[in-house]
């Protein structure tokens, strides 16, 4: 059984890589390369997988909510992804990299009996990025 829970946070970012020139960055990332940055209301779906326990649940919702709020939302909400998130330093703040970062933030702190199965992030309602996590958590 899989259980998915949806969370939201607002953050700004700018897509730019030091590996390219200013002109190349502008050509590659378009509007997303605006030097002052821009923001999104990100939507994160966290999916856990496991057997249904004696309480009739795959996972304790309160424990899952606490974990996600404490270790992901509190660190990303109303932040600048390029400046305020150490895990993203040296990486382009694409939502692909953000999805991997969120999965890693959760994996490091994961103490729930169900397995973290998937992280899915929508940057806007049109762009969604999904990562199945292979790692066996506790």
């Amino acid at each position, binding site marked *: *059984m899989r259980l998915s829970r949806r*969370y939201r946070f607002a953050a700004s970012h700018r897509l730019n890589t030091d590996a390219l020139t200013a002109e190349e960055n502008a050509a590659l990332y378009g509007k997303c390369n605006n030097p002052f940055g821009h923001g999104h209301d990100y939507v994160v779906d966290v999916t856990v997988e496991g057997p*249904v326990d004696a309480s*009739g*649940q795959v996972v304790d919702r309160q424990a899952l909510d606490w974990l996600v709020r404490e270790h992901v939302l509190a660190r990303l909400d109303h932040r600048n992804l390029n400046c305020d998130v150490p895990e993203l330093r040296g990486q382009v703040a694409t939502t692909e990299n953000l999805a991997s970062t969120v999965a890693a933030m959760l994996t490091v702190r994961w103490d729930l009996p169900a397995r973290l199965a998937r992280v899915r992030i929508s940057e806007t309602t049109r762009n969604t990025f999904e990562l199945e996590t292979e790692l066996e958590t506790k």
Partner: protein
Amino acid sequence: MLLTRKAEFSASHVCANPALTPVQNHALYGANANPNGHGHNFVLEVTIEGDPDPVTGMVFDLRELKEIINQEVVDPMDHRFLNYEVPPFDRVVPTTENIAIEIWNRLQGRLTASPARLKNVRLFETADLYVDYGGEA
């Protein structure tokens, strides 16, 4: 090929185990343990897997699927208090997970004659919480 049909039902429930104290139930289920109950607009997505029939071009007759979902789920559960009115929730805690398993079991029993098979039951308790069940133990 996968075919998915959606249905909705509104129902109330209490998530509490009678063997536990109110304090223990609240620790386990949070606000869902309120003894007087609360409700949701549940959204159900039933996914069937199969090959399109060479004559009809359909994986499964959608009209028949709608009828089965209505008979097994919507008619018995819509505008009901699950714990009091819909067995087995008089003895099984109606968590989203257990409701999904019960829906799977009810639908599975009606689809045995078809070459298409039940693939997944997705049940949204709210827009921000859903479970997927594929019949696994």
